[in-house]
């Protein structure tokens, strides 16, 4: 039970009929067929630097999802 304490709660994110697996598969197909599309979406502003606060927030977002991954190993 103690493990549950740290679990992120699934507030307001209840699933509807959205199929993530199918969605990711579809994206992979699109990426393979036209890989340049995603690459081309980047900014041409190479002078801007990825600052610490930005990195920290992007990392926090990804880490949060990663933390969810950890719990399946426990559960």
């Amino acid at each position, binding site marked *: 039970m103690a493990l*549950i304490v740290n*679990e*992120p*709660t*699934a*507030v*307001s*994110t209840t*699933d509807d009929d*959205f199929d*993530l*697996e199918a*969605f*990711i598969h*579809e*994206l992979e197909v699109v*990426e393979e067929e036209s*890989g340049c*599309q*995603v*690459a081309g*979406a*980047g*900014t*041409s*502003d*190479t002078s*801007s*630097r*990825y600052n610490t*606060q*930005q*990195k920290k*927030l*992007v990392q*926090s*977002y*990804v880490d*949060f*999802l*990663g933390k*969810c*991954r950890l*719990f*399946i190993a426990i*559960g």
Partner: protein
Amino acid sequence: MVFYLLQTNIHIDLVDRYDKLVELVNNPIRSGGPRRVAKILVVLSGIITDDKRHLANKTITHWQSELKRERPDENGCPYFAPSSQNQKLRTLFSALTKFHGWHLKLDSLKGFDGSLAEQLGTLYKERSEKYVSLARLIMMKDYNILYTLTSYHRAAILWCAKEE
């Protein structure tokens, strides 16, 4: 117990789904970012579709609703103030746009049922009611709280202000 198991199953399902989004993949964006990035940063980049909007809304809302300070503030509130949290969101989207090729903006995640903006609005209201006194909010000139009050309370505040 049934409830507990049900919750656990729901959660494991959620975990299983997120698991696929944090695998490291090559970063297709060549603008000084890391060479390998979490898959979600790549799959949500590029042209906006309803599916991307849906997934971004879901994951960012989930993350934002759990985001807490390192230590609770003087009122015992473990959450960031709405202004700080909104600033973090703007910074996040700025980075995602500049360095990860996202076309989705904060504005993409509002104006529909269950949107990030709607859900954060509800959370902010609940947190304010729980952790911040009305007097403090008025002192800080955070008049948004007035929208959450009943007309009776608003009238009472106006009456007090006139009396002063």
